[in-house]
């Protein structure tokens, strides 16, 4: 029922192509994130699903239904807008009840319609039937807003407005929930707690969710799977761990988490190891290289820093010599910028009190395990 499939979708605005041949297969109940930098086409993709834009070519399925000829108001996609788009002239209750009213409207005779129009325009002009009232109050309780049912939306805090928008979309029991950067208008703290709220609700209801964001941390911590987009293309789709440990392009390696990216050439293959050389370093990796010229990806937290005089077996692990240029405390970790040849590598080490911190200008040895050296 709630799966979403996008096949070979292209979208052009005039002679600008915003989406190139997008393919997505989102499973029922999945929390799916669209991640990418500004302008890469996330919103456009979502608007195509919601029916506000028409793909130039390709097709979209919601459930088993091809939706090309289904207008936006019949797609049953609950959308949470970036700006929330709450109706400013209605209170919280009326906002949430809107879709239920519309459902009633479409199912009634002309005389009843008039009274529904009445209550859509003003509470005083029509009474809500009990089923709507109960359902709205239930969902408001669920998002902990039942106390504020009769407030105007402008009288709510950002987080509360966010929850009204969520409740308004959820009350219609949509096949898919679409959220376009729903947290970007909230402050840092609230964002973290709303992440949990949204994730919990999604798990609770088992509702298929497409979540647009340009914040990789958000995508990685919330989603079951993530599609990374760049310039209208989908670059990689995978689970957060998959993306992290197997980035398929330098772009992803950089976008998903922090990476050190080095250019190298394959010098030899020996004992299942790939040996690479680059400017001022030599590295071995237990991963296979596809080409002779490779991008070498090393995550900052996979590097250890040792004193320059320590003795390490070069057969067990990679050893690189460098010089500390800067060290920074980041809460529980210490981040070093280390000059290696022409590269500055970022190294994150967990900080335990009393441990030795390498000062600027200090010569050090860096070690990286062979399986941690990723090749693209």
């Amino acid at each position, binding site marked *: 029922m709630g799966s979403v499939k996008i096949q070979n979708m292209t979208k052009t605005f005039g002679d600008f192509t915003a989406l190139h041949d997008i393919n997505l297969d989102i499973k029922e109940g999945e929390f799916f994130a669209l991640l990418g930098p500004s302008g890469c086409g996330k919103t456009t993709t979502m608007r195509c699903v919601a029916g506000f834009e028409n793909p130039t070519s390709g097709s979209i399925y919601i459930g088993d239904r091809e939706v090309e000829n289904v207008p936006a108001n019949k797609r049953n996609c609950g959308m949470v*807008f970036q700006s929330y788009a709450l109706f400013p002239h209605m209170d919280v209750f009326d906002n949430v009840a809107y879709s239920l009213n*519309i459902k009633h409207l479409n199912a009634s005779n002309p005389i009843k319609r008039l009274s529904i*129009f009445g209550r859509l325009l003003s509470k005083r002009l029509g009474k809500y039937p009990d089923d709507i009232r109960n359902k709205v109050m239930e969902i408001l309780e669920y998002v902990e807003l039942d106390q504020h049912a009769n407030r105007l939306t402008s009288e709510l805090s950002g987080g509360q407005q966010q929850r009204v928008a969520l409740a308004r979309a959820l009350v219609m029991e949509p096949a898919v929930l679409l959220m376009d950067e729903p947290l970007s208008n909230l402050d840092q703290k609230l964002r973290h707690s709303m992440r949990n709220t949204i994730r919990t609700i999604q798990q609770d209801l088992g509702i298929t969710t497409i979540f647009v964001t340009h914040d990789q941390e958000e995508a990685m911590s919330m989603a079951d799977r993530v599609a990374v987009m760049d310039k209208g293309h989908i670059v990689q789709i995978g689970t957060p761990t998959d993306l992290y440990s197997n980035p398929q392009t330098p772009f992803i390696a950089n976008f998903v988490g922090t990476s050190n990216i080095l250019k190298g050439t394959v010098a030899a293959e020996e004992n299942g190891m790939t040996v690479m050389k680059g400017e001022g370093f030599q590295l071995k990796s237990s991963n296979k290289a596809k080409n002779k010229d490779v991008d070498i990806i090393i995550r900052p937290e996979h590097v250890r820093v040792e004193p320059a005089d320590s003795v390490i077996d070069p057969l067990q692990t990679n050893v690189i010599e460098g010089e500390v240029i800067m060290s920074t405390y980041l809460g529980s970790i210490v981040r070093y910028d280390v000059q290696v040849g022409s590269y500055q590598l970022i190294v994150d080490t967990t900080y335990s009190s009393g441990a030795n911190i390498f000062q600027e200008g200090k010569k050090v040895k860096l070690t990286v395990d062979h399986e941690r050296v990723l090749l693209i």
Partner: protein
Amino acid sequence: MKRIKNGFSGLTVIKVLIYIFFGLFMLLPLFSVFIVSFTGQPTNLLGALTDSTIFNSTLEKLKGISLESYKKVFSNSGYLTALKNSLLLAFLVMIIVILVCIPLAYGIARTKMPFKKTISALCMIPLIVPTFISAYAFIIMFGRAGWVTQIYNALGGEGMLLNPYSMAGVVVVQVFFFFPYALWPLVAAFKVSDISLEEASLNLGAKSWFTFVFVTFPLALPGVISSALLIFTVSFSDFGTPIVLAPKELNLLVVEAYREISGFFNWGGAAILTVVMVIVAAFFFYLQHLFTKGKNYGSVSGKPKQQKLVENKLVNRSLSLYSLLIVLVPLLAMLSVALQSVATTWGKDLLPSGYTLNHYKTIFSTSMGNIQNSIMLATGALVLSVIIATFVSYFVVRQNSAKLDFMTSIPLVVPGIAFGIALIQTFNTAPLQLTGTALLLIIAYTIRRLPYMVRSTMGSMRAIKQDIEEAAINLGATPLTAAITIVGPLMLPGIAAGSVLVFVTVIKETSISVLLAPPEWAPMSLAIFQNILRAEYYSAAAMSVVLVVLVLALQGIANLLSRKQQLK
């Protein structure tokens, strides 16, 4: 393709209906007047579409198209002088209004002159009074038996200080009753012109008059020119003042056109005059548009700077005195009308010989119908324009319908008399014989005042973000339902503001009422107009007072509403 399928059917139907409305009641009449100006005989274009005999006879007439009638007209010295006189009148009024307004606008915008609030408030008077009433008020003041004339004579003057029945009379009335149209744009121009440049000039040691002439004024110049052109069009199109004041020998286009129709049923002549009027008005409107385009005063320097107001006592006092004198004239004119409405007789002496409420009794017993008619017609026009304007602004703002935007601004350039003539000509005969019905009258009022309504609704439409509407659609509403339940209510403030404007201007409307209103639907403006022509001055005065009070009351309600809105 899909856009249309997206449940747009309801909205599309409405869009088509609006096009039909404008096509039928605005473009077609204007077009047929254009044709008639060549054929010289009435042409029934609608009939030609439905009836083959009419079609054939129309074809015959079209074959007879020639510039003959235009040639005849321009050799007809009467028409030519009318054009010259009308242009001269508009030109004089334009120049004088600007000269009068510059000190006034500067005083309001840039100084701490005393009585500023009072002066600003009094500047509203001319805007609420129909021009034919102002013209008539000037007769009470400056006429042969007017009180000003009497004072003038008592002081030793000969004859009249100013003969109201002359070009000068028309000019003076228009100046005193049209100046607020230029005043407020000028005030705005003076307020935003970059004050730091002026300060720089003063810092460099320039005298303040020098700064005004060479810095302040040039900066406000685009605003000045645009206001001047606006006044030109307003004066050129005005019907109320000339019809009351212009003497027989002073030919003016509007009066001439009116006489050709209502006196002689000379369709050809009236049509040519109409075409000329529209062309002139459109040209000046276009010029004005050129000057305002791209000059959004509000955004000249982003945030308005805190302006230093002139505190020089001498400058402020003389500006204040001057401004009070200017605004006093329309006030006195209206007071004269009020005084006449309670006078038994007035004319022999400086003051009325006695006072009575009989004139009011008379109009409330005999003319109650006119008051009702005015209110009903204005309500009809109001409802129609609210509906049309709401949808038009929806189409213009959301669907970028430039065509509709253009179409709804056409009425701005068509003088009332010209539009009236075009409508009569077109709907005189079957298949759509509407001349003489209240319906055509309401439609005419609606089209004429729609631009104001559209501006007002478009403003609030722009303020509604698109995603709010999309949210409604996403929640299952069709675009039409979303428009009614979400967009409509959010536009209410704009609609309310526009409504008052439409209502008030329709009640004041003269030219359309005079041409199109059938006796059983005669509104107040027509009744007053006829009373004046019949020299029944006392009941005209009483009715004028009722009209002005009605307009004032409405304006008051509107102000109250908008203040409440702002408080929210």
